[in-house]
């Protein structure tokens, strides 16, 4: 047996600090690396990149990095959906797990300088967009108007609400919320997320705007249709894709769609690219 230098499959040990319940089945896990050097290296990630999370003895899964690199904390927001995410949900503060990354292309934030940013998210689709949104807010003067249109099934399914309200107050961005089904406590908009675009008092600039869309496939299709109708060009609509992944580094082949390995060539693609990848969404 011999050692494997620069092992791309070797996770670093991470320690869970605290867990915050977001919505049903979705929790945020704050963590740090055991090795401070690994922590420092990892902190150079870009908005939109992702990491491979290992629960030892169970498996590994790809997870978006919701924090902006301008934030102090590292955390994942993960829905309990399969065996490994369930094992992550069962961890307690102080428990150790594995992380490797960051991987993927991330959002080309420099390209958006001087542009308006329009975020359109559905349900847990806000998780992969959060990094980009908060990065833009932390560099507020580089960008024009920043808007978030966010929809979920009900009030109980809206995520990061506390942070969103706080940012809306303090940092100069518009946040519009909607739910598919209202309950007694809901006084806001009811309907699909793109219905917000036409609400009185809402102006969505089209010229010089980049739109970020992330959500379930059906929401994605309708929002894209509406954005195109409004005059958005394919290359000004950006999304981040998720796929079954085993390696995160362009080797295992599971996430390869059309001409792209989502892990290495993505996960951030423009709609113009997505259209030509074939077999997406």
């Amino acid at each position, binding site marked *: 047996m011999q050692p494997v230098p620069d092992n*791309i*499959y070797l996770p670093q040990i991470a320690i869970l600090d605290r867990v915050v319940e977001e919505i049903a089945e979705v929790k945020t896990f704050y963590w740090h690396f055991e090795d401070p050097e690994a922590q420092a290296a990892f902190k150079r990630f870009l908005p939109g990149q992702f990491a491979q999370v290992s629960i030892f003895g169970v498996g590994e899964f790809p997870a978006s990095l919701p924090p902006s690199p301008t934030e102090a904390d590292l955390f994942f927001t993960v829905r309990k959906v399969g065996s490994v995410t369930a094992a992550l949900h069962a961890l307690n503060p102080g428990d150790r797990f594995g992380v490797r990354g960051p991987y993927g292309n991330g959002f080309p934030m420099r390209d958006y300088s001087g542009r308006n940013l329009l975020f359109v998210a559905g349900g847990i689709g806000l998780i992969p967009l959060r990094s980009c949104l908060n990065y833009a807010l932390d560099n507020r003067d580089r960008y024009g108007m920043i808007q978030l249109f966010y929809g979920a099934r009900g009030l109980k399914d809206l995520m990061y609400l506390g942070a969103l309200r706080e940012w809306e107050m303090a940092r100069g961005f518009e946040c519009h919320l909607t739910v598919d089904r209202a309950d007694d406590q809901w006084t806001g908009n009811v309907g699909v997320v793109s219905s917000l675009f036409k609400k009185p008092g809402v102006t969505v600039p089209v010229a010089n705007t980049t739109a970020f869309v992330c959500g379930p496939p059906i929401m994605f299709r309708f929002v894209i249709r509406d954005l195109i109708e409004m005059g958005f060009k394919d290359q000004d609509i950006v999304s981040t894709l998720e796929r079954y992944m085993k390696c995160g580094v362009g080797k295992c082949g599971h996430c390869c769609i059309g001409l792209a390995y989502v892990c290495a060539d993505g996960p951030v693609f423009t709609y113009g690219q997505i259209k030509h990848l074939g077999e997406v969404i």
Partner: protein
Amino acid sequence: MRARVMDKAHWLALIDRLRADFDEVIAPFAGRGRDTYFDRVTDANRARVPLHVPNPYYPPKRYVLPPIERLLQIHLNSTPRIQAAVDAPRRAIVGIRSCDTAGIDHLDRFYLGRDFRDGYYAAHRQNLFLVNVVCTDPEVDIDDDCFCMCADTGPAAREHFDLQVMDLGDELLVVAGSVTGEALFADPIFRKGTPAHLARRRDILAHVRTRFKVSTSWYWSTVKAITLGEVADSTWERIGNRCLECGGCSYMCPTCTCFTVTERRLGPDDFERVRIWDACALGGFTRMAGGFNPRRAAHDRRNRRFFRKLAHYFIQRELSVACVGCGRCVEVCHGDIGMPQVVEIVRRTTAESAHAARA
């Protein structure tokens, strides 16, 4: 490239020399009928290492990419202990055919190239010494399904070997393709060749090239059709409907690279994380946790493999076609949609529809 000549009678001496130099020597052996297989050369079988042999059904891919390979050994504790090591003996394959040599070169470009270098693959590859034997016996070496002429990988590999052996009759012509290969020429079994040897080599190759049998695979019009999106959905469906989704083509392919990763229990607190060959024809290949499968339509999935191998973007990206003309997929496929058949179906249907459009 340097070349030397040796007596055919010294073939066994060459094998023994390799056995002395390496931890293990692998060679193709004849089983029953035309069945052949790669196996370790031992004291008992060393005299049976053939010069001419039908290419084994299973490719030598497993010597650089084992079907199951441990990536990590995990000991669970309050602080988990993670160990990574690779078992990569110094190994020679003697008798690897030209198509399989090209296959390993393709794997090199995939696993060692681009942004991430696979350390496990690199360790196996670094310790691997390839003695390529040129297919010069049309009756024994060349199968009905061989089409290396179309893939431009044979019958004599031009590169990517350490030594190349060619049967000239009573003598063997040995070409060195690497510095380590050339170092072996110090052995007294080798002597300098003459221009007559090289002329004989040319004559033999010219003859062998005329002795290929039934399979052909004229890739390039198919590459063009796939790259430009000219293949009709009905054609993909026709191909897909013949697929039994067994995954055999991927497992037999010397260039297929996909793997899955899973955790296996070794003891109460011990686990290993292994990677296992995987195949894109299988239904669960793209299924995500929670059950959503973005590649649901069966023909999507079934034709994924051909798209990945024949789209020009990938050929350019790896600087080689992920098909080396070994013919194994033709042999393994129950639906008769090996690479040559698919190339032919796409070529015909796109030509026919272009013809119909002109009429």
